[in-house]
């Protein structure tokens, strides 16, 4: 194999977004005519590397070559000219166009001049569709197509531009199991026709099924250079991806709360809940779970496996297609978010900046607006602004938010203080069931410890907490139980002591 031609080569390629180093200087090379898998957890740097190669972003340092040609000024056009193309995780075809129009628009290959007839365009692309064995009418609208067909078109789009190197960023993320099979069959055909493929994948099972070589990134570092798949065991790969770690004990104090088992009740439950798939996630498929009082249920999983849909269904931001949601003994399946709030549900959203806080609004407004009705002088009377500010002040003080004035915009707070404000607002009163989604993402050590402390206290006080997190350390140190989500389902549930390897394997679907 040493004699094989190298089509992609990186030397010390690094990627930074602002102060965040997404990819440490990395050197690696890929051989022609094979299927290469690039694997790693969220934030490992896979997509960053792929985007550099495709000319979408500039590296912060290093050199790279596409088919022996060094790229100095990277651009998408340049990469395409050299025969490299990328199929994104989110599709880029315009939804209101017909298949033929969309392909003509985005493909490097053009069948039409400045003026053209629709019929000519249609028949030209029909030929291409037939050759690629994609069963779709060139006059169909993009938005009416199933995801699988849409993806096939993206691949066709790239190949019609004579791509010799094709990067696919998480191509299986939104596909059904049957769809994955068909995709893999097509990719093998392409490889046998001489195309080099670089697949960014999450699931080890899929890697084992399709790839010739595998490379692993973890936290922005290459921990395994491209290696023959046969030469490395699945167990070793799992360790490389997740990071080696011993089992972690259950949370401190767990035994105390467990003693009062008789008084425990189910506060939140899902029974056979199905949803539609969203733009970024597969549909929830027959999800059932129960959350008891004085309990933290951790939800682990590689991002995009249905966690957001799960939270949306629980909070009422998305409605279930079928199944039943119960909150504190009430059927809330058809209730909206504000109605669930009055029953006792609170939520810490995934993203504090776009979902948690309104950055231009003042601190006191951010804390009090949601229940402004409770601050009226009479049923239709004006608001008692003084009382609202006082309530906000007390809440902010209780959660130790550092601020100068209640009138300062929320956008002027640090990340840790923003999260404290969100906790202050959500937990100030009446919180009995709390959904905490990525509550410590991006926070420093002290702020993280603070949030953890708050969640533990809340459990001690008898509340039910669902903790959705992609940080396994966080899940291990807080959870009483951990459920693992994969492909829109709860695949397994674990009790302490938690085993990093077992849960890691379950997240990426690896078998030992």
């Amino acid at each position, binding site marked *: 194999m040493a004699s094989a031609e190298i089509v992609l080569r990186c030397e010390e390629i690094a990627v930074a977004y602002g102060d965040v180093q997404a990819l440490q200087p990395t050197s690696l090379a890929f051989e022609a005519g094979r299927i290469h898998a690039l694997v790693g957890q969220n934030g490992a740097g896979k997509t960053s590397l792929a985007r550099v190669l495709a000319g979408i972003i500039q590296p912060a340092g290093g050199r790279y070559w596409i088919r022996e040609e060094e790229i100095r000024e990277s651009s998408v056009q340049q990469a395409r000219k050299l025969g490299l193309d990328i199929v994104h995780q989110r599709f880029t075809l315009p939804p209101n166009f017909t298949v033929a129009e969309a392909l003509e628009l985005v493909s490097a290959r053009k069948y039409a001049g400045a003026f053209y007839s629709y019929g000519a365009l249609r028949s030209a692309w029909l030929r291409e569709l037939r050759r690629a064995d994609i069963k779709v009418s060139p006059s169909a609208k993009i938005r009416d197509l199933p995801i699988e067909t849409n993806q096939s078109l993206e691949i066709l789009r790239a190949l019609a531009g004579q791509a010799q190197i094709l990067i696919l960023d998480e191509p299986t993320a939104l596909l059904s199991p049957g769809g994955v099979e068909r995709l893999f069959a097509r990719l093998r055909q392409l490889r046998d026709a001489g195309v080099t493929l670089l697949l960014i994948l999450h699931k080890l099972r899929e890697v084992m099924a399709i790839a010739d070589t595998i490379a692993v990134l973890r936290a922005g570092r290459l921990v395994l250079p491209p290696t023959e798949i046969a030469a490395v065991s699945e167990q070793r790969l799992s360790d490389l991806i997740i990071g080696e770690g011993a089992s972690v004990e259950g949370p401190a104090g767990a035994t105390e709360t467990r003693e009062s088992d008789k008084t425990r009740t189910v506060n939140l439950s899902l029974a056979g809940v199905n949803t539609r798939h969203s733009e970024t996630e597969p549909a929830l498929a027959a999800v059932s779970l129960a959350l008891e009082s004085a309990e933290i249920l951790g939800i682990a999983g590689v991002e995009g496996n249905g966690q957001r849909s799960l939270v949306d269904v629980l*909070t009422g*931001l998305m409605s279930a297609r079928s199944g039943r949601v119960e909150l504190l003994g009430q059927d809330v399946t058809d209730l*909206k*978010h*504000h109605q*669930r*709030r009055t029953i006792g549900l609170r*939520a810490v*959203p995934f993203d504090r*900046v*776009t*979902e*948690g*806080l*309104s*950055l*231009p*609004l003042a601190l006191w*407004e951010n804390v*009090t*607006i*949601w229940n*402004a*009705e409770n601050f*009226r002088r009479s049923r239709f009377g*004006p*608001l008692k*602004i003084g009382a609202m500010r006082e309530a906000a002040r007390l809440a902010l003080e209780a959660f130790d938010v550092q601020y100068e004035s209640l009138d300062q915009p929320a*956008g002027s707070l640090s990340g840790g203080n923003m999260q404290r404000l969100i906790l202050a607002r959500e937990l100030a009163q009446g919180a009995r069931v709390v959904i905490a989604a990525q509550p410590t993402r991006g926070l420093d050590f002290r702020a993280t410890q603070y949030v953890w402390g708050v969640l533990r206290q809340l459990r001690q006080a008898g509340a039910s907490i669902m903790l959705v997190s992609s940080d396994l350390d966080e899940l291990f140190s807080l959870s009483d139980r951990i459920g693992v989500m994969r492909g829109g389902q709860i695949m397994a549930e674990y009790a302490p002591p938690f085993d990093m390897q077992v849960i890691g394997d379950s997240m990426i679907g690896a078998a030992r």
Partner: protein
Amino acid sequence: MSRWLAIGLRVASPIALAFILGFTLFAGAGYDIVEVVNGLWQGAIAAPGSLEQSIRWAIPLAVISFGIIITLRTGEFNIGAQGQILLGGLGAASVALLLPGWPPVLVIPLALLAGIILGALWSAIAGVLKVFFNADEVINTLMLNFIAALLIQWVTTGPLKDDATRGETASTPRVDRMFRLSDGTGVSIELILIVVVAALLAWIIIERSPFGLKSRLVGSSPRVAAWQGLQIKRIHITTYLLAGAFAGLAGALEVLGPSARLVTGATPTLGFTAIVVAIVGMLRIPGALAAALFFGGLQAAILFLPIVSRLPSSGLRIIEGLVALLITAQFLWQRRRRNQGQKL
């Protein structure tokens, strides 16, 4: 205090720039600038009756702008005030003309109420289209303006036609003197009292009601609003109803006040100038009142100018248009910058 200075500068600079650009244009075209400035001064303030004229135009501008402030705070760019004014005028004129001889204490409130309701319903059409069919509100409200204008044309040439005049512009008959809130000058204690009450009401809605606070959250961060359990659709519909109500009230005041009747093609720019008033007023009621006086003065000067200057009144309309353009550009630019900040 430096904050207020900054705000003052931010408001004043596009206005100053508009005047500089306008005057440069006039000077280049050979007009006497001193004469124009004198005309402005005379027309807005100094000449006898000018100040009254300024207030006469400030009244509808202020009342309409209250509603526009509410929509802009909710993040909606409603440019349908023009049509809502006409519907408000239609409501008031209909009541006043169909109940002749009834006691004014009954007819006047009824006429105002009819104007408010018709304006609100007209605006709600755009709101429903936006909320339930996701149809762009700028297009909706603009198109509804045309429909409203044609509706008024039909009413004034058909059902409520004034047979007495064979005049150039179609209009309804005059409203009975008993039902009027002012004479032709358009300034009276009654009108000013109504504006004060409307301003207080608008201030309470914006600054002291759950709806006012929530609409700001919806306008600034709709996703946060959803996570906070705000009923976004309901807030949007309420926003449109209120905007139409204020514009409808302004239309009713025109008919019961200076105009005395509903005229086809009357006051074709009030609804648009009121948007500029709302933005210059920093989306706050006291600011809008001040801005309404400024643009009321400009409107009065526009009508007065031909008396003392060779510059046609359309010259000052250019300045008014420039102010609107620059202020709107500044407003949208700031909003975009803020939204970008939100994304980071």
